[in-house]
């Protein structure tokens, strides 16, 4: 269909000076993909701080044996809300926020395919998040039991049934997450329609930036994997409100059914969460190595393969349930299979760096740290995919260390790199490199100090979710190191927040293209105007700005 012609001068967006109410209205009523993307990311960062504070309290409680920082009930709520927040209110809006802000710019479009649906998606997500947190006030219910949910982020049945979870805390968990899931679905449909229908002339799928490819497959995974969770939550609510028997073992219902439904969502979800990191690496590593991405077709193939294989591995979370040995074998094998495309990606990023002129600026430092940490996470993942090994370490701190290596050592690390990389585009100003380097070293040392020791604590038998432990089991030293590391990470994130705010006001003007980059978002101003591009670009290769800067040696001659 024909592209929409935006009038370049719009009286309604003319700058009429700084009026708080007007500005606020502009942000609330906006359907602009960049504003919505930023709102997604800012709310994700706020939730990240909230959940981070919870993590610090958890680490303080566990720093010494027989700790008394919080009582057991509060502790259960802390780890439940920490996990739920990190997955649904940090990870998911980061996916939506990054793809909202960057996908239209990278494919040379003026907005997402459905701008109003986009706005709906953001507000319903935020409403879901606030609904979840309202449980701290409204969760007690008539019987006076409970406030915030305390059933773990996976909310296993039958703990969630009415008889074991009185009050309304589980209802807030189910409804809040269900509602924020609608937002993710809306944004995923939007990303798919945008990438399929709004690419600028010349941008065939083979010339589309790798970032967009990864986010496209990510949106696909959301569409397939999130509805099972919604279905499970609807069943849970039916059980709790109408007395249905889905997970009621007294009536023949099955608690294991919930586990299946949850992990049918839950495993693809970890790929949904990590994909932004893959997307960021695929852009940053080439730019900072001054080489095109190594093995681009293999990268596309790998990400599409993950988009399908990861749908069939869920029961590796359930080896300890007592499934048949055939199921155990199948899911162990498929879990190892999904390691192959992930390995291809790691190999190709490394190969991109090989022989390149590497610029070790902060974004690239974070990418390097990602590669090492994610490799460790992948290796412990393969270990846990071996069913007998998993039986030994299931529900131990080894598992906690493993998935924090994927999500904090993988996702969050790559995200920081991405944030620094696109910061000049979004803010129009450069971040402070010295402060950023301090952030990097403090965070990376703190992270490893927290989570490497937890592998050992887990191997020594420390179970997950315990609120304290007795002295003399050899767990003390590992827990003290971990708690020290947590404080360092908190300090690092504070530096990051300060850098973001300070540089937005006082930073050096960045210019349109501070990194000498190759994708379209660097071809417009920083920050981009509301209509993104004055004229829709036409591209002939996967590195349009390279072609532009090197008219004598353009990429399209070779592609």
């Amino acid at each position, binding site marked *: *269909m024909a592209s929409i012609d935006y009038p370049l001068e719009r009286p309604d967006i003319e700058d009429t000076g700084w009026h708080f109410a007007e500005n606020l209205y502009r942000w609330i009523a906006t359907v602009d993909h960049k504003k919505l993307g930023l709102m997604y990311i800012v709310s994700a960062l706020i939730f990240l701080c909230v959940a981070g504070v919870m993590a610090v309290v958890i680490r303080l409680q566990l720093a010494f044996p027989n700790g008394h920082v919080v009582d057991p009930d509060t502790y259960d709520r802390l780890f439940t809300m920490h996990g739920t927040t990190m997955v649904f209110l940090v990870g998911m809006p980061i996916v939506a926020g990054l793809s909202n802000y960057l996908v239209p710019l990278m494919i040379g479009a003026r907005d997402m*395919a*459905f701008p109003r649906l986009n706005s709906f998606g953001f507000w319903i997500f935020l409403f879901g998040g606030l609904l979840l947190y309202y449980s701290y006030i409204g969760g007690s219910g008539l019987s006076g039991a409970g406030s915030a949910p305390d059933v773990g982020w996976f909310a296993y049945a039958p703990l969630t049934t009415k008889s074991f979870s009185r009050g309304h805390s589980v209802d807030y968990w189910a409804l809040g997450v269900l509602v924020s899931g609608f937002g993710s*679905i809306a944004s*995923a*449909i*939007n990303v*798919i*329609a*945008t990438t*399929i*229908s*709004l*690419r600028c*002339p*010349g941008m065939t799928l083979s010339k589309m930036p790798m970032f967009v490819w990864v986010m496209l497959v990510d949106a696909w995974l959301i*569409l*397939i*994997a*999130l*509805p*099972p969770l*919604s*279905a*499970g939550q*609807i*069943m849970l609510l*039916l059980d709790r409100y*109408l*007395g*249905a*028997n*889905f997970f009621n073992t007294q*009536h*023949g*219902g*099955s608690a294991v*059914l919930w586990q299946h*439904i949850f992990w*049918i969502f839950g495993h693809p979800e970890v790929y949904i969460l990590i994909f932004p990191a893959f997307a960021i690496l695929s852009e940053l590593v080439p730019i900072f190595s001054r080489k095109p991405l190594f093995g681009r077709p293999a990268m596309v193939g790998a990400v599409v393969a993950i988009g399908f294989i990861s749908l069939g591995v869920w029961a590796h979370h359930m080896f300890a349930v007592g499934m048949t040995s055939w199921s155990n074998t199948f899911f162990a094998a498929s879990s190892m299979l999904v390691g192959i495309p992930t390995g291809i990606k790691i190999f190709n990023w490394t190969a991109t760096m090989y022989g390149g002129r590497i610029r070790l600026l902060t974004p690239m430092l974070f990418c390097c740290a990602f590669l090492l940490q994610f490799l460790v996470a992948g290796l412990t993942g393969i270990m846990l995919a071996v069913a007998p090994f998993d039986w030994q370490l299931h529900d131990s701190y080894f598992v906690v260390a493993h998935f924090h290596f994927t999500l904090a050592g993988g996702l969050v690390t790559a995200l920081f790199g991405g944030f620094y990389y696109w910061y000049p585009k979004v803010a129009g100003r450069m971040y402070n490199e010295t402060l950023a380097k301090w952030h990097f070293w403090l965070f990376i040392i703190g992270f490893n100090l927290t989570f490497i020791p937890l592998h050992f604590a887990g191997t020594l038998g420390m179970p997950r979710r315990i609120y304290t432990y007795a002295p003399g089991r050899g767990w003390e030293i590992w827990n003290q190191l971990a708690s020290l590391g947590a404080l360092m990470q908190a300090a690092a994130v504070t530096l990051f927040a300060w850098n973001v705010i300070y540089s937005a006001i006082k930073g050096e003007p960045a210019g*349109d293209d501070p990194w000498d980059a190759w994708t379209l978002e660097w*071809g*417009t*101003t920083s920050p981009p105007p509301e209509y993104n*591009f*004055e*004229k*829709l*670009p*036409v*591209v*002939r290769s996967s590195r*349009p700005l390279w072609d*532009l800067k090197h008219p004598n040696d353009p990429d399209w001659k070779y592609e």
Partner: protein
Amino acid sequence: MAEENVLTAGALTLEQDWKMPDRGTVGIIFLIITETALFSIFVAAYLIYIGKSLVGPYPKDVLELPILATICLLSSSGTIVFAEHALEKGHLGQFKLWWIVTICLGLEFLTATGLEWRKLIVHDHLTISTNLFGTTFYSLVGLHASHVTVGMVFLLLVLAVTLFRFPIETQKRRVKFLSWYWHFVDAVWVVVFTVVYIIGR
């Protein structure tokens, strides 16, 4: 913005030949895919719980084949296509006629479901909390019926604006998307019918 001009220059032919799929079409297709994922979990739960009820009533005792309702719903998929074709050719009168027929068939289906539920609840004392059959039956059939209801709301909306002389011929795309959604709801019914009334009985 000098860069932009270089970017766009010399590629006019490419620009003119550049055709992309319609975004609404893509959107509705992926909405249907995600809905399919939602239904498949409820269908799977139904299949898993077949024969697992600890107390009666059981499906074979109380369920009757909803033949008429099924015929109505499936044929409404045909009548909505006739309506679409009439709109395509500009025959507004025919469009309205077929549209109203579609609505009537949909309403007949919903009424039949309502009567069936009434019989099950009042006569057979089967509620959602009675046993696993009740739980899975009401949630799966109810999920489908709620989708029929949503479709019905949109069908009525189109009818209402048409009757108020809104130029519906400018909205052919949206009518088409609504019709796709309606086909999807019908296709889901084929699955639900097979699972609930044939396999489950």
